[in-house]
């Protein structure tokens, strides 16, 4: 996936001289995750820049550059680092268009790596969509693999709004053939149905798309598996159409239950398709704990395909929301 990201940025940089890249060690070192491979070589140090460690400063500079005509692509190495820079994203960049009566645009793409699974520990393993959600004026997309990353990244760079693109870190090493060029672009705000099935609609995002598809393939049931792709705005049409058909909604999230994006999907569906649900909506999530380091614990923290299978099976058999795995675990001494 890191190659797809480099390629997407390179393609946009070729197409538009206003596209620049900023971040810590994105230039000479080509990015800590090699997501800007070849960019410095091809586009030079004026457009591809290593920054000091100062996320507020360079994200703010990117807001200013975007507001005056450039199209910066900013790397936030781990999404947690937005915690030192959120003001510029949410309170400045996201509100400039509004606060200029529509006369200033902020075509800014912020890429951030997210998620658990690589042993980076509690402060470098969250997904944190919740920090970005609920901010009108921002868009938010999440990549689920190489093709998805390529397509969303190109769309994000072309968009005239500030956009956060989250990249599940453990997918960087994933490889697949990617359609590049215009046909590879994935419009923002559109979900993608990955698997077709009957018994449920399972909405996944980022890292959980693959796990969910795997779960479905191995399961005794079949389901529509939807890669939401964009979270802000999210694609009601695709989700509603599917739920109207299957009658069951499941969301699969890598984040803790409380504050997770799944609640928004569930709340919307529960309100708008109330009569059409055959079973309670089920949210499959990580537990409400900081991400633990120990390898087995970290593995368990993320919803596995076995666990997804188990949970959906439970829902289908009983018509009720099954207990999450940790209820038993926490009970035991």
């Amino acid at each position: 996936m890191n190659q797809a990201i480099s390629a997407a940025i390179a393609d946009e940089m070729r197409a538009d001289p206003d596209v620049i890249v900023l971040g810590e060690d994105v230039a000479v070192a080509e990015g800590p995750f090699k997501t800007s491979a070849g960019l410095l070589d091809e586009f030079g140090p004026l457009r591809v820049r290593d920054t000091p460690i100062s996320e507020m400063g360079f994200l703010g500079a990117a807001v200013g550059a975007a507001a005056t005509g450039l199209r910066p692509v900013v790397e936030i190495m781990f999404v947690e680092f937005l915690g030192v820079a959120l003001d510029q994203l949410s309170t400045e960049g996201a509100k400039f268009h509004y606060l200029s009566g529509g006369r200033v645009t902020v075509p800014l793409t912020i890429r951030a790596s997210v998620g658990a699974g690589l042993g980076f520990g509690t402060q470098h393993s969250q997904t944190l969509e919740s920090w970005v959600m609920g901010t009108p004026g921002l868009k938010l997309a999440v990549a689920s693999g190489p093709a998805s990353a390529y397509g969303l990244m190109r769309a994000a760079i072309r968009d005239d709004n500030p956009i956060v693109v989250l990249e599940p870190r453990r997918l960087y090493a994933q490889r697949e053939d990617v359609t590049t060029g215009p046909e590879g672009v994935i419009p923002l705000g559109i979900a993608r149905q990955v698997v077709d099935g009957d018994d449920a609609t399972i909405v996944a995002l980022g890292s959980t798309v693959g796990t969910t598809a795997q779960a479905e393939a191995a399961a005794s049931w079949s389901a529509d598996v939807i890669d939401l792709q964009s979270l802000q705005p999210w694609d009601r049409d695709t989700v509603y159409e599917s739920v109207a058909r299957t009658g069951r909604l499941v969301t699969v999230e890598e984040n803790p239950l409380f504050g997770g994006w799944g609640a928004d999907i569930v709340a919307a569906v529960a309100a708008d398709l109330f009569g059409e649900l055959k079973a309670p909506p089920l949210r499959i999530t990580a537990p409400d704990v900081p991400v633990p380091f120990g390898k087995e614990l970290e593995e368990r923290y993320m919803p596995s395909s076995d666990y997804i299978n188990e949970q959906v099976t439970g829902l289908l058999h009983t018509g009720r929301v099954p207990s999450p795995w940790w209820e038993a675990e926490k009970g035991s001494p």
Partner: protein
Amino acid sequence: MSMPDNRLERRQALHEDRRARYERMVEIRALENKVQDLFDEGLVHGTTHLCLGQEAVAVGVAAAARVSDTVTCTYRGHGVALALGLTPVDLLGEILGREIGSIGGIGGSMHLCEPDVGLLPTFAIVGAGIPVAAGAALTAQVRGTDDAALAVFGDGSTNIGAFHEALNLASIWNLPVVFVCENNQYGEYSRIDLTTPVDDIAVRAQAYNMPSEVVDGQDPDNAADAVAAALMRARTGGGPTLIEMKTYRYAGHSRADTAPYRPEGEFERWYEKDPIVNYGRQLVDEGLLSGDDLDAVKTLVDESIAAAVETVLASPAPPMAAMFDNVLAP
């Protein structure tokens, strides 16, 4: 004497004509006093932060910068906005939340904007405009123009991280940006020495190997010259500068604050350096204006502000649907 109401002409005048600088300072003061009156009359929803006493800094900055430069400024931005070329109607319209305001009454006193004269949306978050100005300078650098950017901010803002990060970035990238600190001696209700352990903000530039200067901010020519020199350095590849303008906030921090925390006699001492009184006197001494001219300026300005108030009060509130506009760019 004339008062252009076209924004670009208003701006142009400051470059060419020192009498226009005087006029503009008088206008800023009159507008701010009017805002306070309107506030006291209950006509201003929310809050205001007046720049009374700091008129020369605003005019100096605007006189030195050109319209293709980008300026970021704070909530205490009425003066800077007027000086850059916005009209009293633009401002009062916005402050009073009318459709005719700078951004249609959606922003209020703290959120003014006018891209035509280089003003990005003003910032209600302390320090936030500083890195953004560095970013505007980055645009000029990447595009190879000789435009520059200016950040205008307060003394208290130099204690926040964004200031530090922006100055460091600007220095290491040699960005064409001028950081203008309006040291008005207070951050909210606290005298600067209670929050800031240096006498001169300007020394902070040393931490970034950046040139800096302490400037008397009560003289518009002085202020303009300092900014112009820094801008010239910026445009010619010499990188950023930090300019500390020593000035004084005549009013309280905001709204109904009467500044009871101010030591006895402080205001009076600063008033001896009043930019309008002194600059007026200077122009008279130089024979550029007569004493009668000064009175005429005041009269003209008062009339124009009164007319602006009238225009604004006759302007409708923004339609309800306006709140849904411009959330996202198409």
